[in-house]
């Protein structure tokens, strides 16, 4: 919350600063404000948002890989995990954040646990779908060529599953960037913070600027992973 000053011991007097004419007239988007507060509000929020996302995605990817290996090897693990992920998605993100607070407090850990649980299952589902999607004939050919089970996994199944796995990574990343805005209800971090502040102060510019940043961040991340996908798995026919 910027713009509030405490005058030595006396009553708290809101100090609205030296706003531009646009702000004083309640214009719905003031470019001057964005220019002035890029350094102290928007940029830090953007960096925090990226941090929140990167941590959630990397931990989520690691855990999902382990789960997927187990679920792929032992099929009976798969249905309960699927049912659990259905249940998880039916829990509102706000409630999930709140239910974790008594355990982990108003901390980054709380936010990350919630974000990781959401990404985890998007990634897990795509990994399993990718691995199971390898045609039986292809596996037959691999066996015919004398590849062992481990060789088949690393040289045939994994490369063929890669496009689907990366597709899941795109979905998970974009969704996480979007859900991470809700984190601002728990900790004053990320792009959700300027949005909530803007709401409290009925200041449209801050809301719009932060929202647009969040949307662009999501789309940029999607584009980047799509490029990576095309570079790394040129054999994929999926876009």
């Amino acid at each position, binding site marked *: 919350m910027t713009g509030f000053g405490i005058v030595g011991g006396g009553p708290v007097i809101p100090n609205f600063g030296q706003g531009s004419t646009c702000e004083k007239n309640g214009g719905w988007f003031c470019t001057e404000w964005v220019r002035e507060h890029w350094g102290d509000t928007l940029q830090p929020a953007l960096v925090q948002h990226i941090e929140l996302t990167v941590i959630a995605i990397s931990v989520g990817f690691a855990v999902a890989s382990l789960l997927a290996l187990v679920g792929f090897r032992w099929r009976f693990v798969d249905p309960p995990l699927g049912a659990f992920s259905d249940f998880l998605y039916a829990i509102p993100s706000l409630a999930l954040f709140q239910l974790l607070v*008594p355990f982990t407090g108003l901390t980054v850990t709380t936010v990350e646990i919630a974000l990781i649980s959401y990404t985890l299952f998007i990634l897990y589902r795509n990994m399993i779908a990718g691995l199971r999607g390898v045609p039986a004939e292809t596996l037959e050919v691999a066996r015919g060529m004398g590849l062992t089970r481990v060789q088949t996994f690393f040289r045939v199944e994994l490369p063929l599953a890669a496009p689907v796995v990366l597709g899941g990574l*795109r979905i998970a990343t974009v969704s996480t960037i979007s859900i991470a805005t809700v984190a601002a209800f728990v900790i004053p971090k990320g792009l959700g913070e300027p949005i909530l502040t803007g709401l409290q102060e009925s200041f449209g510019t801050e809301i719009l600027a932060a929202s647009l940043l969040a949307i662009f961040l999501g789309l940029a991340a999607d584009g980047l992973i799509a490029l990576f996908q095309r570079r790394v798995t040129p054999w994929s026919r999926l876009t």
Partner: protein
Amino acid sequence: MIVGDSFTPGTFVDAFRFIADNASLMLDKTGETAELSFAALGVALLLSLPVGLWLGHRHRGLSVALGVATLGRALPIIALIAIFITLFGTIGFWVNMPALVVLAIPPLLTNSYFGVEGVDRDVVEAARGMGLEEPQILSRVELPLGLPLLLAGVRLAAVFVIATATIAGTVGGGGLGEIIANQASYGLSGVLAAALCVSALALLTAFVIGLAQRAASRRMAPRA
């Protein structure tokens, strides 16, 4: 804002007791959430189905369908609600409903598109050869065959909208979100109770649509 409160296994018991003690309140709030969610879902269906089905029928606009899906995922709900509040200058149902509509459109649009687009082209050719008009092909051949995938999209959108509708409660949208966002007065057991009600509503809706989905795919399965 969220207040730290101690969570014990007893909180779960308290949550169920909370539901029992405040049955009429919980019913009211669940009703409000359901009303908001289903209204948004209905409007989103009306807007996205015609477009998705027609594009799928014409086998056009793949990039539109995929682009809308990505854009939809990238739009944060709080951002949408906040933007609508600034634009409309008001809060409540008429701000939250349109925001949820925007969120529900992507899964509905993409699934109706891919449901119709994925129908075997030979089947469509056969129907055309039998002299069916284009709208008839869409309504009698492609729609029934694409229905399972379309309903999967409806299910996804419904769960998503119901779970997200609670965020609306934090900005004067009423419903269960009001309880979830107000731990100070309802306590942790109240929050947990409300979360359980949202999840129950979402899972129940998903279950009912899942039944319809199963019926639709069984009807279209080749008979032995």
